[in-house]
């Protein structure tokens, strides 16, 4: 209902560009009719048009579908119907997550023309909420990489410095959010692929507990580690998206009913304030922030501040930890003896083994590219995979095949599985003493495009990441400072299914 006051607030919002809005603010603007979803969506599409030539975050943009969805939400709003938080808010989805009728390449030539025949569960959930999906974002081929340089199509650039990588493998999603080309995005994380790009691009990135979010429709890399999660501008937004995508799904037998605090979800959904078209303020933690944090025991693992780490990154991370201390949290030094280089070594056995099995399906027969020249069935396999799969993907398939082959299985695969147990034991021990764990995300800020030529040096940039995946824990990266113009990330690790706690801690940190 147009009233005099609205015009004023419209002007105020226009000064803050529409593309800068968070989910919470965009929702508020939509229900208050300060702008329409069509206006919002158009301004994002225009921005992508203008900016993405330089940043290259998107592999596919779907303006027709996005505008149609926006129109649908505007119709609901004009009928004064109640709309969910994500309704009409533009977002982006990593291109290894299926969206029906839209190309899904996983950043690989072998799936260059593959059209997804159905929706991933997370996409279905976003659609049910009325989300406006703008397009599919770039990634390292099959999510294998830490910089998005391994995309078979083009590298994505870091919006803070175009000569640098956005991190990977969800680099397109993080860059799109950081450059205001989407309000939020979905990524996937097998060994840091949400948290590293979130850190390099200065956004929030949540890797949920293994099993918290359905993997149905996510193109599989390592099935015992993969998780889908949000990349957002604020912790509050990460919470909103996580609450929508989390939950048991019959189509993913490893998904569970998360023990995520249900009341928090219910109060928000049923809030009378929403019905009254006013977004409930998410500040209900802030006034109790100090009292909450005083009971918080934070563990800082000594192994996570290593030689060769960028001094300025270390300073920023330590400064972040000191902020918690200043607010009254108890900081305790802990030990995760297998959390860094042993975890990385185990990861680079276990992941390639799962990859070599999962990627056997790209055989030139079922879907994707098939080699034109092949005299028999064997050549169909050999040539299709040679032509269609990039060097890093083939390297990992080879490594996994080697580790699983006769004579090597025990020395590599079985041993790595046992080290995985030790990593879980480390965390269990630590979590008997502390509530959450804080670590750096990456030992260095975003590096230059082309800087890491040797595959092993690229692997080492995930040194603080992989233990969380091997143990199936939730981990969140949030911005904690800058080195020059390059953002630095702080990682919060929680106990399984305690996303609510790490989100609360993150919300408190943003206000410190």
């Amino acid at each position, binding site marked *: 209902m147009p009233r005099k006051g609205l015009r004023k607030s419209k002007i105020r919002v226009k000064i803050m560009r529409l593309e800068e809005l968070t989910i919470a603010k965009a929702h508020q603007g939509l229900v208050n009719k300060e702008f329409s979803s069509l206006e919002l969506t158009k301004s994002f599409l225009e921005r992508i048009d203008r900016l993405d030539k330089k940043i290259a975050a998107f592999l596919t943009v779907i303006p027709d579908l996005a505008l149609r969805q926006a129109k649908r939400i505007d119709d609901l709003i004009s009928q004064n119907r109640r709309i969910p938080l994500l309704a009409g808010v533009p977002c982006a989805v990593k291109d290894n997550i299926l969206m029906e009728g839209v190309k899904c390449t996983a950043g690989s030539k072998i799936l260059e023309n593959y059209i997804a025949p159905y929706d991933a569960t997370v996409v279905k959930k976003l659609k049910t909420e009325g989300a406006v999906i703008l397009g599919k974002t770039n990634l390292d081929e099959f999510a294998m990489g830490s910089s998005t340089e391994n995309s078979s199509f083009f590298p994505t650039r870091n919006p803070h410095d175009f000569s640098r990588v956005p991190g990977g493998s969800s680099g397109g999603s993080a860059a799109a959010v950081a450059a205001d080309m989407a309000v939020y995005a979905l990524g996937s994380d097998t060994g840091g692929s949400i948290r590293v790009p979130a850190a390099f691009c200065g956004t929030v990135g949540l890797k949920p507990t293994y099993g918290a979010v359905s993997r149905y429709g996510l193109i599989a890399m390592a099935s015992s*580690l993969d998780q889908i999660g949000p990349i957002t501008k604020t912790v509050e937004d990460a919470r909103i998206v996580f609450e929508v995508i989390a939950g048991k799904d019959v189509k993913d037998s490893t998904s569970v009913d998360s023990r995520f605090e249900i009341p928090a979800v219910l109060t928000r959904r049923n809030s009378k304030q929403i019905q009254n078209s006013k977004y409930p303020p998410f500040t209900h933690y802030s006034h109790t922030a100090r009292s909450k944090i005083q009971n918080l025991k934070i563990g800082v693992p000594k192994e996570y501040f290593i030689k060769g780490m960028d001094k300025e990154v270390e300073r920023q991370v330590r400064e972040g930890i000191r902020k918690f201390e200043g607010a009254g949290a108890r900081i305790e030094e802990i030990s995760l003896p297998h959390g860094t280089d042993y975890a990385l070594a185990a990861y680079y056995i276990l992941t390639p083994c799962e990859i070599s099995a999962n990627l056997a399906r790209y055989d030139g027969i079922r879907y994707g590219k098939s080699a034109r020249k092949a005299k028999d069935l064997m050549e169909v396999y050999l040539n299709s995979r040679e032509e269609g799969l990039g060097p890093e993907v*083939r390297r990992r398939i080879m490594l996994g095949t080697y580790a699983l082959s006769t004579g090597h299985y025990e020395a*590599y695969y079985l041993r790595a599985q046992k080290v995985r147990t*030790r990593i879980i034991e480390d965390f269990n021990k630590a979590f008997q003493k502390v509530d959450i764990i804080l670590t750096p995300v990456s030992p260095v800020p975003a590096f230059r495009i082309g800087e890491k030529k040797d595959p092993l040096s690229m692997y080492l940039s995930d040194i603080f990441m992989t233990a969380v995946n091997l143990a199936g824990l939730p981990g969140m990266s949030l911005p904690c400072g800058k080195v020059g113009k390059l953002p630095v990330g702080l990682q919060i690790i929680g106990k399984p299914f305690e996303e609510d706690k790490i989100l609360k801690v993150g919300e408190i940190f943003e206000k410190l």
Partner: protein
Amino acid sequence: MISRKEVQHIAKLARIGLTDKEIQRFQKELSSILDYIEKLKKVDVSKTEPTSHPRLIRNIMRKDQPRDEKTEVRKKLIEAAPCQERGYVKVKSVLK
């Protein structure tokens, strides 16, 4: 350093075609990664059970029954195959 023959053997097992130059490259790269992984030998795992999955779940079974799927989905799935005939995926002959 793993041998040229080993790389060729793994490539064949993995059904990946490699050029001569790539065989050399993979020899070098795989060796350096395997060297890094050697450090796992330093961990005492003599009394440790292996973990294959982060959650303690047993196999989740369902009846092996065909699911009713919409014809258009079935059509789309078949059409995703590079080579088809009369609603089937076509493969080069397996047996000579």
